[in-house]
């Protein structure tokens, strides 16, 4: 074994090569987006490792399901039945309101808002380093997932699809430092841009003048501007307003309504018109695909 005299190019040359190649890759990736299409293949190549990493939590879930006690199941069933009852009561009112809204819109000659196709997907991996906040879903190009598609949980907007693989896709959360979402306040329709701060429970509203009427507790929903997120889904609630006149803008902090730290099942949205009327997907054991009837 000869370790004193290295073979091949010397160590320094190897380092310089590696650094130059890395810098070239970073520039090509971030400035010119040159790997947009090849990322799909790279992700698919690496997905066995992701499935492997996900195995312990899947096994834990399966065994937890097997070992659930009878009382727990009865309790859960009771709770869900109550919830369905409440929901269907609201649904009855919703149908009437929807019809009324359509008629009013017809009177005003504005197009009525079409419904959305939805699909439930499951969380595969979470990558929330302070630098980038992303999650991986178990639906990909095979399920018609597309780039910058909106992703929701049961409370509000979670993020948008940033990379699509064959069987999984990567979602950038609204709290990522490089992400911003156009919102409006429900109370008075003032528009804001809510950008991520890198911490899971904070969004920052940017460039808000001191005179703007914004208060703690204001609900912010997507404004539909920017054509990424559909209009009217809840995003965040204003949690802190600091009006310091020595600063050019007021500091407005909002808390996302989606529970970004405990995501499990997520909803993917397809705006209507981009697809033909879809069949209702077969409901399998652990995932349910929902089709909206509107």
């Amino acid at each position, binding site marked *: 074994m000869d370790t004193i005299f290295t073979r091949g190019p010397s*160590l320094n040359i190897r380092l310089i090569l590696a650094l130059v190649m890395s810098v070239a890759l970073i520039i090509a990736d971030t400035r010119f987006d040159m790997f947009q299409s090849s990322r799909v293949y790279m992700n698919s190549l690496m997905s066995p490792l992701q499935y492997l*990493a996900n195995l312990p939590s899947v096994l834990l879930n399966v065994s937890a399901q097997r070992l659930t006690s009878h009382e727990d199941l009865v309790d859960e069933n009771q709770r869900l039945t109550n919830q369905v009852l409440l929901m269907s009561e609201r649904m009855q009112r919703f149908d009437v309101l929807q019809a009324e809204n359509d008629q009013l819109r017809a009177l005003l000659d504005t197009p009525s808002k079409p419904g959305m196709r939805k699909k439930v997907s499951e969380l595969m991996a979470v990558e929330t380093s302070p630098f980038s906040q992303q999650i991986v879903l178990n639906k990909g190009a095979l399920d018609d997932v597309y780039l910058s598609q909106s992703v929701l949980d049961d409370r509000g907007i979670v993020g948008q699809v940033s990379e699509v693989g064959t069987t999984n896709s990567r979602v950038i959360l609204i709290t990522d430092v490089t992400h911003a979402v156009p919102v409006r306040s429900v109370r008075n329709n003032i528009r804001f841009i809510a950008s991520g701060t*890198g911490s899971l429970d904070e969004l920052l509203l940017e460039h808000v003048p001191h005179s703007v009427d914004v208060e703690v507790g204001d609900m912010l929903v997507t404004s539909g501007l920017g054509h990424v997120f559909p209009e009217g889904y809840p995003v965040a609630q204003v949690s802190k307003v600091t009006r310091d006149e020595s600063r050019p803008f007021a500091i407005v902090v909002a808390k996302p309504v989606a529970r970004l730290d405990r995501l499990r099942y997520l909803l993917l949205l397809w705006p209507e018109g981009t697809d033909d009327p879809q069949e209702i997907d077969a409901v399998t054991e652990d995932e349910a695909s929902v089709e909206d009837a509107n």
Partner: protein
Amino acid sequence: MLKVRHYSVIISILIALVLQIIPLPIQVDIYRPDWVLIVLSYWTMALPHRVNVGVAFMTGIAMDILLGTALGIHSIALSLSVYTLTANYQRLRNYSVWQQAIIIGVISALYHVVLFWVQHLLTGIPFQLSYLWPVVSSMLLWPWIFWLLRKARRQFSIN
């Protein structure tokens, strides 16, 4: 046995990659040790003619794909850390395991500072001291990984 002997370095790196991305509760996640860096460090010190900057670069690309960061970020940090180790492997081999643990801590700090620095240039994130928790957990993990991998290396007589 022949197969394990030939592929053991790659297999150990793959296991480290899986451990690096395995989902953890968010409270524990900030203490996650740098599995990949530790395993690479061991092989760099043990077999510097086989595992050095080239392997570190490839592993870094794999990490970038798995973590969804821009390609090249982890490969820069890993290449630099492994280069430092390869350049000094003869000295480092003579240290005791605890002295090596301190060196691993320094290398891990370098790794995280480089990672932060590159990402700061790209996205402008502010620095928080909690980014450096993995340095401590990596130091604590090093003796065990060292012992485990050395046992594996002797068992399969890898060189």
